[in-house]
């Protein structure tokens, strides 16, 4: 079981079954990526492996970010699949880094994830957490049907690896129907939004019992 309560204090997040996939949804600039990174960093801190599939930050920046989030991280605990398509030659130490030609190259992303999981496994990581940032960018490269299926198939792969996954989506960038479709590919959802009077709040849906109330984070 995975316990995410040190990142987000919700009872519903205290016992996440391996193989679960969680959608992190919220408007632009509401801290979705921060939250996903924190969930991975918390795992690294506790000895889990971490895989980041990124369509925005470059692999080098992601590795740097995690080195500063978890100062005693062993690079071999981290895998990055950089989908920006610019190759990239930044030094990334011993992290398991793979480059993919575009966020629409699903087979390439799958191969990258497979290699990262293999690298992490060989480095002795039996558990782990994967973050995909972001589905909104993928949705500009390929249609919602393909993204839905991709999420479903990836969840199944994470299930057999015993990992959990968090996937971010910008709720303001898509119509209601698209959001409803994408949600169905996940076991649960963390909703984030700006709170009145500053700061942010979140709620958890679908992981354990009824949806929670909004709570300041």
């Amino acid at each position, binding site marked *: 079981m995975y316990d995410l309560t040190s990142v987000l204090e919700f009872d519903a997040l205290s016992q996440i079954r391996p193989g679960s996939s969680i959608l992190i949804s919220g408007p632009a600039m509401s801290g979705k990526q921060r939250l996903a990174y924190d969930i991975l960093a918390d795992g690294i801190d506790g000895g889990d492996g971490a895989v980041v599939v990124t369509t925005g930050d470059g692999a080098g920046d992601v590795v740097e970010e995690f080195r500063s989030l978890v100062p005693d991280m062993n690079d071999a605990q981290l895998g990055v699949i950089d989908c920006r398509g610019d190759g990239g030659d930044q030094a990334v130490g011993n992290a398991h880094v793979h480059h993919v030609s575009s966020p629409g190259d699903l087979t390439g992303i799958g191969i990258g994830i497979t290699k990262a999981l293999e690298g992490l496994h060989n480095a002795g990581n039996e558990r782990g957490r994967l973050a995909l940032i972001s589905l909104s960018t993928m949705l500009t490269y390929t249609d919602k049907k393909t993204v839905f299926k991709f999420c479903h198939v990836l969840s199944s*792969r994470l299930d057999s690896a015993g990992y959990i996954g968090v996937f971010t989506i910008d709720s303001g960038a898509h119509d209601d129907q698209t959001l409803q479709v994408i949600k169905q590919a996940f076991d649960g959802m963390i909703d984030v939004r700006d709170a009145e009077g500053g700061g942010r709040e979140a709620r958890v849906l679908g992981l354990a019992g009824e949806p929670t109330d909004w709570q300041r984070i």
Partner: protein
Amino acid sequence: MYVDMQTGTVETIMSNSDLPVVLIVEDEPDVAETYKLWLQEEYEVRMAQNGDEGLDLLDEAVDVVLLDRMMPGLSGDEVLERIRERDLGCRVAMVTAVEPDFDILEMGFDAYLSKPIRSEQLHETVDNLLDRSEYDSLLQEYYALVEKQATLEATKSSAELAESDQYDELTERVAEMRDQLSDTLGGIEDDSDFIATLRGLSEDDNN
């Protein structure tokens, strides 16, 4: 086409059964015959001695291609490339004399078999590739239901949804299909399943 003079019925000779169709592309006749013997009880088998012949025998009906990598004329890799260009949706297993490394998946094959191949290994591979295709069509069906459900959710109020039998029924079927997808085929079991399934998605997208 074949017309039976006595009954007047018309049959298609190429594909006169509901069995899945396996195309064997192999230049060594003995080896090809052996595969055929092993497979013909359960599948309709087509045989080609080289890449060009293989491409001729390939059509929508073919589910799985067993492709020898080292052949005179067109190589297995070249044949694969042309198969993918034609977007037929069949699954391709490469048959090779050496144990390949990871790059096989990147090259676009869905599975590989290294020689010498045993009967049960061959069956296992073909069955698994057929399962992949079944998984794809289930996933497609599942998506269609999810999309319908989402459309209702996006266009009707929660009061209207609570009253709607159609919505109830859809929700139930979505839940059933989700279980079916994870149980019946055991989900995604290994790396080649994972990649082969993803490759299928990108191909659907191109259609």
